[in-house]
Structure formats: C-alpha cells, structure tokens
C-alpha cells in the first residue's frame, strides 16, 4: 500500500496544490462509493458515468496530442468521434443500413483506419500553412461529416440513428455496465501509457517546440510538417476509438451528438486540466462530465424546487464560471505539464553518469530533484 502511495506521489503529484486537487478527487470518489453502498446512487448509473467520463478522457487525451503538444487547433473533435462511432455502429449493428453485424473488433479497426485516412486528407493541405488554416478547415470538416451522416440516410440511417449495436465482451461474467467501465479503463491505460512514452521523448520535445515556435524547430532541422501530421493522425485516431467505444456504450447512435458543443466540451476539459498535460486531460474530462451530468439533478433538490426555476439548462453557465475561476487562480490549468518531456530512465541515468564523470554532478543531481518538487 505504501509502495502504491509513494508511486502515486512521485509520478502524479508534483506540488502542494496538486496534492489538494488529488485529495479532493479522492474525497469525491469516497463519497460516490459511500453513495453506492448506502443505495443513494445506483451502481449501474455510476458505472455508466465512469464509462462516459472515460470516453471523454480519451477524447481529451486525443486533443491534448494535437493542441497540447503540437499546437494544432482542431475544431472537429466531434467529427472524428462521430467517424469512430459510425464505423462501429454501421459494421456491427445487424439492423444498420449495411446490415453486416460484424464482430466489434472490425468496428474499432475501421474507426482507426477511416479516421487516420480523413486526418491525413485534411492535414495535407492545411498543416503546411499557418495554424489558423487547420482551425478553419476543421470547423468545416465537422459540419461536412455531420451533414453527410444526417443526409445520406441510405448509408447512415440519417437522423433516425442506428440502434441494436452489440455490447462489448458480453461473455465476461460481469454486468454489462461493469464490462464497459472495465473496457474504458483498459483503453485509457493503453492510450495513456502510449502517450507517456511518445511525449517523454525527443518526439514530444519537437512537438512542444513546434507549438511555441515552428520556425525554430525548422531552423534546427526538424521536418515540422511530418511531426504535425503524426500528432494530428494519432490524436484523431484516439478520438475515433473513443467514438467506437461510445457506440458500444450507448448501444444507439444518431447525428445529434455531432454538434460543435461536443467539440467545445473537450476543449474546455483540456484547458481546465492543463494544456499539454495528460494527467490534466483525464481530470479535466472528469470535471466537465461531473458538472454536465451533475447539473441534471439540481432540480431534484427540494430547496431549488421551491424556487420554481429550472437550473439544469444552466450547466454551460457553471462550466463557464469554472473556466473563469481557473483562469483567475490557476492559469495553467488544474494539473499543468511539468518535466514531461524526458523519459525518467534517461534523465536519471544521465544524472548518475554525470556523477561519476565530473565533480559538478552533485549540483546537477540536487537541481533535478528540485525540478520535480517545483
């Protein structure tokens, strides 16, 4: 247990404020568990929310690769999410217009391939230009994808949507809600570890340099177009995987979720959590979903009922208020990125090598520890 807590404090928590943030998150978790045990919250509902938070966390991680690392302004998060969701729904639902009823694995594979293809297609003309061109083109892409799905109903079932999407891993001896929650936890773990490896590396550093000063990266011999394309494709594929997962979570999909609002929830989650921070992306997604879903129940509170106003539609106001508070008191987000660009083994090994090689190493050693605590 102590080994676990020391791992947590070393790899996740960087300073006192972050300790308080994690303590708050821990407290909320405890409250939720107590809620489930006392029967206030249905376990099925909670598991569904966990799966939903997980899906948003995946989307945030995807956007974080693009915006947080490479500085790519992608306003088509909902479109890539929709591509993933529709790939899964069309291929796996027996009563979809394609009527194939394939195994969910094919849905996920199609989501990856199609989203990568679309990302390359939109990246080729825009990634060589200034960053605003991708922003404009991606806004257009989001509407184009939505319009296609809405109107080409011989292929996509249009506004009536696709139902009958099969559940994932239904052979597991768990309830369906528990299975989807487990699946999303595994997906996040895989994506998180993948991103941790690629970010804490020369690759991650080049992307971060591009974000601040693309000309500098070019002057140092980096093919910035290639790096931006890789980041854009990786982010888009992660978003599509989140979409495919959602299709199997909700078991029904229609174009109404492909609106820009979905995209902006993800932007808010990334900014809230700390642009460029993978930990932040996950926490930011949880906070945004907590507010969005939590406000549904505001009207059930007796005191508010006596006021006779409907507070639930004010959820965007709450999100906006939170953003203002964060920007006022913690500009870089809840869990901003720190020391996330060098693989720990390389860095620590480098310090130790220095210790035996030169007398100035103690200085370097303490300095690098200081960096972690900063």
């Amino acid at each position, binding site marked *: 247990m102590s080994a676990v807590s020391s791992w947590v404090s070393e790899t996740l928590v960087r300073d006192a404020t972050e300790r308080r943030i994690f303590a708050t998150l821990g407290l909320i978790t405890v409250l939720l568990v107590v809620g489930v045990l006392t029967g206030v919250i249905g376990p099925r509902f909670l598991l569904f929310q966990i799966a939903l938070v997980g899906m948003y966390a995946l989307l945030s991680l995807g956007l974080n690769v693009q915006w947080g690392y490479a500085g790519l302004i992608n306003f088509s998060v909902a479109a890539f999410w929709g591509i993933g969701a529709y790939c899964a729904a069309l291929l796996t639902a027996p009563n979809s217009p394609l009527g194939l009823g394939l195994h969910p694995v094919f849905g996920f594979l199609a989501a990856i391939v199609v989203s990568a293809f679309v990302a390359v297609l939109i990246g080729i003309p825009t990634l060589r230009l200034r960053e605003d061109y991708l922003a404009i083109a991606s806004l257009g892409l989001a509407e184009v994808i939505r319009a296609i799905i809405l109107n080409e109903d011989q292929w996509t079932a249009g506004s009536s949507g696709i139902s009958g999407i099969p559940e994932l891993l239904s052979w597991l001896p768990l309830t369906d809600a528990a299975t989807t929650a487990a699946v999303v936890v595994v997906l996040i773990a895989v994506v998180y570890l993948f991103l941790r*490896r*690629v970010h804490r*590396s*020369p*690759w991650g*550093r*080049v992307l*971060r*340099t591009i*974000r*601040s*000063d693309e*000309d*500098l*990266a*070019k*002057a*140092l*011999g*980096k*093919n*910035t177009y290639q*790096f931006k394309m*890789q980041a854009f494709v990786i982010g888009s594929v992660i978003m599509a995987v989140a979409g495919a997962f959602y299709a199997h979570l909700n078991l029904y999909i229609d174009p109404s979720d492909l609106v820009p609002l979905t995209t902006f929830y993800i932007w808010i989650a990334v900014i809230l959590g700390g642009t*460029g921070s993978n930990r932040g992306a996950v926490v930011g997604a949880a906070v945004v979903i907590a507010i969005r879903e939590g406000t549904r129940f505001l009207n059930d509170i007796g005191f508010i009922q006596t006021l006779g106003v409907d507070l639930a539609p004010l959820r965007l106001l709450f999100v906006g208020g939170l953003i203002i508070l964060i920007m006022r008191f913690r500009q870089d987000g809840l869990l*901003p*990125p720190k*020391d996330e*660009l*060098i*693989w720990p*083994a*390389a*860095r620590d*090994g*480098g*310090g130790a*090598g*220095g210790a035996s*090689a*030169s007398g*100035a190493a103690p*200085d*370097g050693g303490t*300095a*690098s520890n*200081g*960096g972690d605590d*900063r």
Partner: protein
Amino acid sequence: MNDDAYEGARLGKSDVVLKTTDLEKAFGGLVATDGVSIEVDRGTITGMIGPNGAGKSTLFNLISGFYENDAGHVTVNGEDVTDLEPHERARKGLVRTFQTPRRLEGMSVREAMLVGPGPQKGESIFSLFFSGSDVTEEERGNIEQTRELLERFEIGHLIDQPSTDLSGGQMKLVELARAFTTNPDILLLDEPVAGVNPTLANDIKRFIRELNEEGQTFLIIEHDMPFIMDLADPIIVLDQGKVLMEGSPDEVRSDDRVIEAYLGGAGP
C-alpha cells in the same frame, strides 16, 4: 565538441562553407536583395553589417530557406541547396538563430536544449517502442552533452529553470548553445547581442571566439559596432540590397563608401 569528427568532416569538404550567387529577392516593387554574391570561408567569423533596410535579415532568410529567392543560388559545402526546405538546409549543416528568440512554453532549459541535436533516434515513434534502449542511451548522451555545454557557457545553474523564466541575454546564450548542438558546418547568428547587457555580451563574444578556435564557422549579423569589429574578420557590408564592400575591420572602418552609407560621416 568532437575534434576528430570535425577534422574528418573537414577533409572531404571545400574551404568555402557557404556561397551565394546573384541572390535576388523583391517584395512587390521593393528590391530587398539585389544580386548578392558572398562567400564564407571555413573557420572564419564573418561579420555582416549594414544600415537598417540594407537587406541583412532578408539575406539571412534567403540563405536559411525561410524566404524563397527570385533568382540566384545558395550552396553549402559546394552543394546547391537553393531548392531545399529550411529543415533540409539545417541538416546540410546550415543552422541559424533568430533575432528575437521565443521562449518555449512549458519546457525547462534542459528540455529546450535537447531539441538541438538531430536527427535523434527518439524522434521516430517506431524507435520509441521497438528500440527503446538505443533511444534511452542516446538521450543520456545528449543530456550529458547539454549539461557540459551549459556549464561551459556558465549557465549550468539554469538547467532546471523553466525556459520562460530566462532573461533575454540568457536566452541568447541558450540559443547559441542549442544551435551548436546541431553540429553545424556554419552557424548564422542574427544579432546575438541585441538587447544583451555588456557583461553578458562580452561572455557571448568570448564563447563565440572559443567555438571558432575549435573550428566552428560563423556568419554574424550585428548592429553593435565595437562587438562585431572586435570579433569578426572579414566583414561584409551590405547597403540597399547590394554588397558594398568586404574586408578586414580596419579596411571597413576606413572605407569612404562605408562611412558615407552606413556611418553617416562619423567614425565607428
């Protein structure tokens, strides 16, 4: 850094590192670069001066590939690089710094420095997963090199600072050090001491001289006359998009055309 490697590289290459032939660039009706032909010999610190609007920065951008030229050629080590992108030219050994370095947000000095060496194995996602130990080994080497270089430039204590916290002068030093880690054949410095306090400017001068003694070739734009006159030889004088003259600092100082065009009749 590595003398053997440098000598080895040097043997196969001509003694002119950088050459431009009749470079031309016009912005609308304004001819910013008007048939500029210069040569930078290996092992020199070549200075480039000229009044505001003489076309120094434009020429730098043409040489490094950030602007496309209308006519003429750029060659590095005898190889024509005119049609190459900026990053391709950098890989041919032509590396530049910028007049106003932008801070790298969210990066420590160490991390900002580590962008320099290249191409690194760890820049490929495939290598990160399939030859991770090679990547880690290379990283350790680069981290060690970074630490040594920063200590040599007397800013070793800044290695863990966020690069956003550095002063303008310190940032210029980091820029110089980072550009040097690319192992360039020629370093183009765009006003390396603009806005830097005199003490630090002297340090920068000393470091440039040291690197030069180890064989590093420089081409430097600088407005600070005492600085460039003390450091560079030869000096190229640009005026109105053309090469006005080229010569030693003394020749430049005493040249009537330079005094008239650039110094407005007053001595340097």
